[in-house]
């Protein structure tokens, strides 16, 4: 759906994006992670033809961007940093204007366009909005409106920059559920975020951007493959340590870290030894660990030079 080849954007001497080779596949829920100022927004803008690359190439939905951006963009819904709307108009009026502003051949009759706007508002939980102008909206409502604007055209691909910005926990969950259900109906979702929990709860595939370079790109499931350790919690840790003889790597009160590949077999062994097992958990690396591992300390430093040996695994 989205591939880039050695994409680079230089502003003067600063490299905002460095040789990024992105690979987003159809059906992905792709999360682009990176600290503020790591080049996420510049990358998103290049995908949408708003910012022109210094070098490298972009292909979105099989078409070259920016050359054929007019063919690509009608199939994309986008949220580009903060949502924006004409503050003196209502949310509905804003969506109608934006919908009408699209390609010269209007999609469908007046009535179907009207319904499309209403559907998008309903999807983001703004069905009941009145005629109040957008300037009276809360931050969360503006964010929902921005998402509705991205959804009006029923896109095949969603490119969302920080989609849950400014939303309360309930709103974050609503949007996550919405994105997952859209994805289930065939929409590919590409989102950028600096919120790790958000991405790990939503995405199937992650890329990590650090100082403009893509330092990691992998399926979340394989990143979070079991580490070969099992966390065991028991009321009788002494007996467990004795039964496991040398496999216990770490003990903290009643909690043990056991080096053992198969949790079921470990459980059987503990039960056989008469250890009362309270809980058993296969250890996985957290996304946070993974990300902190591959990123340098350059957060909030726009275009700070990355370590020269940083490479895409």
């Amino acid at each position, binding site marked *: 759906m989205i591939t880039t080849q050695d994409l680079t954007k230089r502003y003067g001497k600063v490299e905002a994006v460095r040789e990024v080779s992105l690979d987003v596949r159809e059906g992905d829920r792709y999360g682009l992670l990176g600290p503020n100022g790591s080049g996420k927004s510049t990358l998103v*803008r290049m995908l*949408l*033809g*708003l*910012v*022109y690359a210094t070098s490298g190439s972009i292909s979105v939905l099989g078409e070259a961007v920016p050359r054929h*951006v*007019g063919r690509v*963009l*009608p199939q*994309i819904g*986008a949220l*580009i*940093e*903060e*949502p*924006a*709307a*004409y*503050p*003196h*108009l209502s949310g509905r*009026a804003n969506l109608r*204007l*934006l919908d*009408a*502003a*699209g*390609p*010269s051949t209007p999609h469908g009759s007046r009535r179907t366009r009207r319904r499309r706007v209403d559907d998008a508002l309903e999807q983001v939980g703004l069905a009941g909005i009145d005629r109040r102008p957008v300037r009276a909206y809360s931050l969360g409502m503006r964010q929902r409106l921005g998402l509705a*604007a991205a959804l009006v055209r029923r896109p095949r691909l969603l490119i969302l920059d920080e989609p849950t910005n400014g939303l309360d926990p309930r709103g974050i969950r609503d949007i996550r559920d919405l994105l997952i259900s859209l994805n289930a109906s065939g929409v590919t979702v590409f989102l950028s975020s600096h919120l790790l929990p958000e991405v790990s709860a939503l995405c199937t595939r992650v890329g990590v951007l650090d100082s403009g370079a893509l330092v990691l790109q992998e399926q979340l499931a394989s990143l979070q493959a079991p580490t070969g350790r099992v966390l065991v919690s028991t009321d009788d840790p002494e007996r467990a340590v004795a039964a496991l003889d040398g496999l216990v790597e770490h003990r903290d009160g009643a909690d043990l870290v056991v080096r053992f590949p198969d949790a079921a077999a470990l459980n059987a062994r503990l039960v056989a030894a008469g250890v009362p097992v309270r809980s058993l958990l296969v250890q996985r690396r957290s996304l946070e660990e993974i990300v902190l591992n591959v990123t340098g300390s350059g957060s909030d430093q726009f275009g700070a030079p990355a370590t020269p040996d940083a490479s895409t695994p």
Partner: protein
Amino acid sequence: MIAVELLKLSRRARTWFSVALMCALPLVVAIFIAVTHLAPPPGQGSAFLSAVLDDGQLYPAAALALVLPVFLPVAVAVVAGDSIAGEASAGTLRYLLARPVGRTRLLVAKLVAVITFTLIAVIAVTVTSYATGVLILGPSRAAAVGAPPGGLSGSITPGGGGAPTAGLQPGAAITSLSGTPLTTLHLAERVLGAMSFITVSMLGVAAIAIFLSTLTDSALGAALGALATLVGSEILVTLNAASTVQPYLPTRYWLAWIDFFRQPIFWRNIERGFGIQAVYVLVFLGAAWANFATRDITT
């Protein structure tokens, strides 16, 4: 996209407020003149104003002369300066372009909206001032238009372009500036001609403001930049030392529309006025397009 831009224009309170303001100025002037019966003597003050007490039907021409120097160009510069910069600073520009709206198409739609705004303003001023003229100043009193204001005639007809001025000519309903009578139909034609010339005269300002609007994200900056250009041009137009560049200044032929009210119409400066505006539009819209089409949208 043009329809969308016109809709946006019509939904902005600023649009109607500025048109109302432009209509109010001639109304206030008319009330003062009607109450005091003190029109400026021929040759002084704004064009045509000396004649309106004698014939209220001529008031649209006087009203256009009142709004032309400042009100109209300021309003046009504000609307045109806002065109791209306003969308950029509001953040809506990136969403329009991602819709997608082609950059060239967006510029064209903005230009059409600015021209429409100018036309609406000129028509509104003409219509309201005609009503004002007839209702407040009264219909024709069998008098004639006085000589064109002295301060203007020099710059309008350089080298004595063959537009003799005449004094009052009793008997004729409406008289041209040249002294020969005009029928109401003729007058309407000439008012239409003046309206279109004034609208075209604003295109140069509009093009400069749109160009500046693609350079900056500050709508105010773009509008003021265009106005500064106009003020500079006005200063050079009256400066004898700058006579070599005067034919190329954007405001040089702004007052040529007055020549529509001569008999016969004195076309030379009108044609030059159209020509110089066309040049400004081509150059600055071309520059605006070249800049906007290749620019990174980072707002």
